[in-house]
């Protein structure tokens, strides 16, 4: 799988070295989710990205933990060209997302929100 990874460029999607908008994160998420749903491995490149925020990463990657198994994400999703401090931030976003979706009440609300078309409050 990892030999045949799809490439998704964060810079290309955001159109800027500043990946700060939750809406842009949502666009990244939609591409990742489509690939993961199809069982494809993806390499998410942060090449040329200079600033990312937790809001962007929560939308792009954090919400994947409400839709896919942790093992599935670990097997299929790779990142590259990411700055060391941004890796730290991404790790925190991932840990927070795991805890967020591990709470059944929150998860139920999340499902309800998605079904109701409210993906982001």
């Amino acid at each position, binding site marked *: 799988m990892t030999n045949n990874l799809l490439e998704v460029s964060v810079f290309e999607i955001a159109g800027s070295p500043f990946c700060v908008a939750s*809406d842009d994160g949502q666009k990244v998420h939609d591409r990742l989710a489509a690939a993961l749903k199809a069982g494809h491995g993806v390499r998410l490149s942060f090449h040329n990205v200079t600033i990312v925020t*937790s809001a962007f990463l929560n939308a792009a990657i954090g919400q994947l933990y409400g839709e896919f198994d942790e093992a599935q994400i670990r097997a299929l999703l790779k990142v590259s060209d990411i700055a060391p401090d941004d890796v730290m931030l991404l790790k925190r976003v991932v840990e927070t997302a795991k805890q967020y979706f591990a709470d059944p009440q929150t998860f139920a609300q999340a499902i309800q929100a998605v079904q109701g078309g409210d993906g982001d409050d």
Partner: protein
Amino acid sequence: MRIALPQLHHDQAGFDALVDLWAKTEACFLDVIELDLSDATWIDADLCAPFGALLYALGERINTVKLLNIRPDVERALTQNGFLSIYGRKAVPDRWGTTLPYQQFDPKDDRYFADYVETKLIRRTELPAMSSALLKKLSESLFEIFSNAVIHSSTEMGIFSCGQFFPKRDRLNFSVADLGIGIRRNVTETTGLTLDAAQAIEWATTGRNTTRRGAIPGGLGLKLLVQFVDLNGGSLQIVSDAGYWRRENGKSCIVQLTRPFPGTVVSVEINTADQQSYVLASEVEETDIF
């Protein structure tokens, strides 16, 4: 109606003066409000963000606001950052290169805010030198503050920002204000917790607490900001509803204000002489993220 405004410093007393102004004017409709600034010997420029937010809210109620008897020093500062242009003064260049201009954004303006940070902070060569690590961390923090306002305030009346460098003190002050629902109401509506406004801010800045509900997780923005300020040696103030919260030297304190602010203000003071790398020793491998 004529109201005297005192000096406005970037502290609790400054915010007290602003919420007092709001308490005196919030009922005004189709009115002329004259603000007498003859006693305002100083206005910290970043406070133009919450001040401008209040004046915008008054304008939404079809009031005319006039700023009278502005002292020369204050007039110079608030003209250079563009604030007084809104109230009929001629814009003048920022001679010392120390202002981050007063600006109003729509909640959908993430990209304009990014452009503002890039052109007014990151690429401004005349600003006091900061290490590249600090500049990156500071920019991230400003984006986190803006995102926080966008995501949590539910504001329809915009987001207001303004900043000021103090080169001799190695300090940069930056404030972002919104006219949204405020932290207390947000916490109550999403968690059912009954907290006063100051307690609600404390709750929102602590541990894993988040008001986020739905498919996208959250709850990191304010904590990241607190950690940055603690490491940097700066300070952070949040005013929301009648709550005032301050973080400095790794400690936070809360105070209940006598009057509410009609939204939220996040105000940060950064030590611009900070030379830390901000990359921790225990770095995470790219293969060990998920």
